[in-house]
């Protein structure tokens, strides 16, 4: 089985594997999922060869499981990510990620004179276009797109 072969590099017993992450988004995914704040065993790989992306990143997270809505948030920076849920060394579920209609508290508004960049306010956006990504700020109504998307790291 293909998944077996791939996972044998550093197989995890139970947990989540996220594959096909664009190299430039690896650290953004870490920030979005708040992985820098948990103490589980995790393996991150980057600049691995990929037919689809050229180079890709991958992460294997032992004993870590996510709610679907939390995982979907990474679609902002890794729209082609493939998620495998592992139980007892077997892939028990495969998921793709999808950008949610409402994006809260992950992305910084591109508008420097937006109230959210001047006062401590959780950002809120409405998804107005999927490909390329366009997010409309709930407050200033300006569009933040993929080119100027800055991820607010969770803390």
């Amino acid at each position, binding site marked *: 089985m293909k998944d077996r072969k791939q996972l044998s590099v550093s197989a995890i017993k139970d947990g989540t594997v996220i594959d096909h992450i664009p190299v430039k988004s690896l650290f953004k995914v870490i920030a979005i999922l708040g992985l820098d704040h948990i103490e589980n065993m995790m393996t991150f790989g980057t600049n691995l060869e990929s037919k689809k992306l050229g180079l890709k990143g991958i992460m294997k997270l032992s004993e870590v499981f996510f709610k679907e809505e939390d995982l979907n948030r990474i679609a902002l920076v890794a729209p082609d990510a493939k998620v495998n849920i592992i139980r007892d060394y077997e892939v028990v579920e495969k998921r793709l990620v999808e950008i949610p209609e409402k994006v809260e508290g992950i992305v910084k*508004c591109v508008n420097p*004179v937006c*109230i959210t960049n001047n*006062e401590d*306010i959780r950002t809120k956006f409405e998804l107005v276009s999927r490909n390329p990504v366009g997010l409309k700020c*709930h407050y*200033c*109504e300006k569009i933040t797109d993929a080119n100027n998307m800055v991820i607010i790291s969770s803390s």
Partner: protein
Amino acid sequence: MIGKSLVSINDYTKDEYLKILDLAAKYEKQPKQTILQGYVVATLFYEPSTRTRLSFESAVNQLGGKIIGFSDTGTTSVTKGETLRDTIKIVSNYSDLIVIRHPLEGSARFASEVASVPVVNAGDGANQHPTQTLLDMYSIRKTQGTLDGLNIFMVGDLKYGRTVHSLLMAMSQFKTTFHFISPEELKMPDKYKQHLNDLGLKYHEHKDFTDIISEADILYMTRVQKERFSDPIEYEKVKNVYILKNHMLENTKDSLKVLHPFPRVNEITEDVDENTKAYYFTQALNGVYTRQAIVTSILDLN
């Protein structure tokens, strides 16, 4: 609209606009009433805008309401670093409705989420100024007898002018034909043109401000500001092109009205003021009735 904040022109439906305009007509007939007696309206002006503030305060005072607030953040706790959140929460306890003007975009939306009373946006940076749009619509309907099927010419800075953008969004619900007259650098942004395309509405773009205005029902003038140009030579070239002079109105419709959101600098020469087609001073007065209608509708007093 009862109890509902007015932050963006898109917050209200077409029916709600029309209700406000009908009510404004009533207040025009009888602007002095006691309907707001016992009510306190806070006007929080984080940047000076004397005309807008006086218009709101006159609207409220004439209906017997009381005003609290500030018009200059230099003398308040705001300068000591109090957050907008805290100010709004505190002022909510002192008032029945908050009118806010703030230089940061989205500030009024945020205020409306923090406040326990309704909030009316009196301008949040370059974003929204919905009461201006409603008073523009009131002026258009009053002078043309309808909002449907009009030729509206917008002149000047169509790129940064938030009043023309909001007016376009609102009037796009009324089978309007738009004409945009502006220098190349200040053209109407594509997203608004796309909006009109999506609705199947016609628009025409012109660079020259000439006798094409003979078909106009409404001529909406705006100011072309020097600081909007990346190249000062470009500004020098166009600065006198988008100025309305009295003789230019000779071959226009008898029913044409000239509107301007004010303040005016030089984009309408003073000889136009005496022309019966000049409507901008009355337009400003209409702001009082429109704001009376907005405040009393939100407070459910009609």
